[in-house]
């Protein structure tokens, strides 16, 4: 195979590293907290690209090609996050540090929103995170998707009032308040575990091994 078209982008890389260093240094003069978050953001983007992690693939591939590798990896991510969040929340409440979790109100618009989001991410070839990653990778298609995302988000945000008025809304349900922490965690991890087994079975079945 002719490898002459594979050239090192090292110079660009060095330049970019200097740029990032400058950015981080400047930001650290303003706020350590924002600097940390920027660094975390960079880490997210880096890891997502390097591991080819795709949440759309996790939900779509069992349906379209019978593969559940990413689905199972996503379930692992969910499990780690559930445990980590519980720990952090508990730790923060012990020290009286205010911390908010994503316990969102529930309404018809939650389901409609989910449906639209699911359809949209398959058509766009990425979810909101995926779009940002692919813009970073240089995909023109996701530049266009981003444009749509921006417009759609404004339309969505501004129509929220109408959805609430027409269909109403219930406050979010924080499961530990109802079941207690330990039963909640056990329940959630059990469900994830069942889904994981199901995902593994599904792939084997699609591959004809089961």
């Amino acid at each position, binding site marked *: 195979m002719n490898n002459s078209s594979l050239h090192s982008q090292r110079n660009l890389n060095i330049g970019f590293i200097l740029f990032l260093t400058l950015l981080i240094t400047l930001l650290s003069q303003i706020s350590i907290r924002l600097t940390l978050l920027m660094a975390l953001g960079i880490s997210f983007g880096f890891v997502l690209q390097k591991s080819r992690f795709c949440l759309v693939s996790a939900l779509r591939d069992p349906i379209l090609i019978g593969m559940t590798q990413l689905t199972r990896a996503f379930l692992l991510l969910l499990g780690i996050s559930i445990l980590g969040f519980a720990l952090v929340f508990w730790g923060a409440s012990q020290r009286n540090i205010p911390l908010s979790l994503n316990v969102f109100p529930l309404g018809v618009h939650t389901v409609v929103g989910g449906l639209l989001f699911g359809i949209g991410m398959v058509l766009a070839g990425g979810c909101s995170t995926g779009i940002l990653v692919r813009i970073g990778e240089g995909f023109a298609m996701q530049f266009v998707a981003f444009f749509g995302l921006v417009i*759609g988000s404004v339309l969505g945000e501004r129509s929220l009032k109408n959805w609430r008025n027409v269909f109403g809304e219930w406050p979010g349900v924080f499961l530990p308040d109802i079941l207690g922490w330990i039963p909640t965690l056990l329940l959630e991890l059990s469900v994830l575990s069942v889904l994981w087994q199901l995902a593994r079975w599904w792939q084997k079945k699609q591959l004809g091994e089961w």
Partner: protein
Amino acid sequence: MKKTLQTIIHGPWAYWIGAIILGLLNILVLIVRRQPWGVTLNIEIWAEWVGTNLGILNDRGFTFKELMTFSGTYLNLGLLLGAFWATLVASQVRFRPIRDKKFFFSALIGGLFMGYGARIAYGCNVGALLNGIASSSLTGWIFAMAVFSGTWLGSKLLLKYLM
């Protein structure tokens, strides 16, 4: 040893390794930000600011200075830079143009649906799905089922119109 270094630089990393690192990063964001990681809220706010400055949206009072103090701005910006850097480190940077106009339209429509759906549900795959479930919120699980159903519908559309 050299092969391991090659894999770290070029990728791909194993999915489960990605999952573990992402999980830890997700928890770190919660600690530093005192609220979970999310993507679309910040995008929407920036869109409001741009729209106001272009004169097509009524002013909701977001100033540039204010936007630059929001944690979401730095998470999203960082993500973009990080993904680019990851591609650059592996010398895989290249512009990947759209090669068929059907993908232009599916990207545009897909993006619109995603943006709209994410904001009426208070979040996207990360904010409402991943971190809704991570927050032990029932809404998160319901949203997850809705997104999965939507994925099924979207897949049908893909097979019909994009193959």
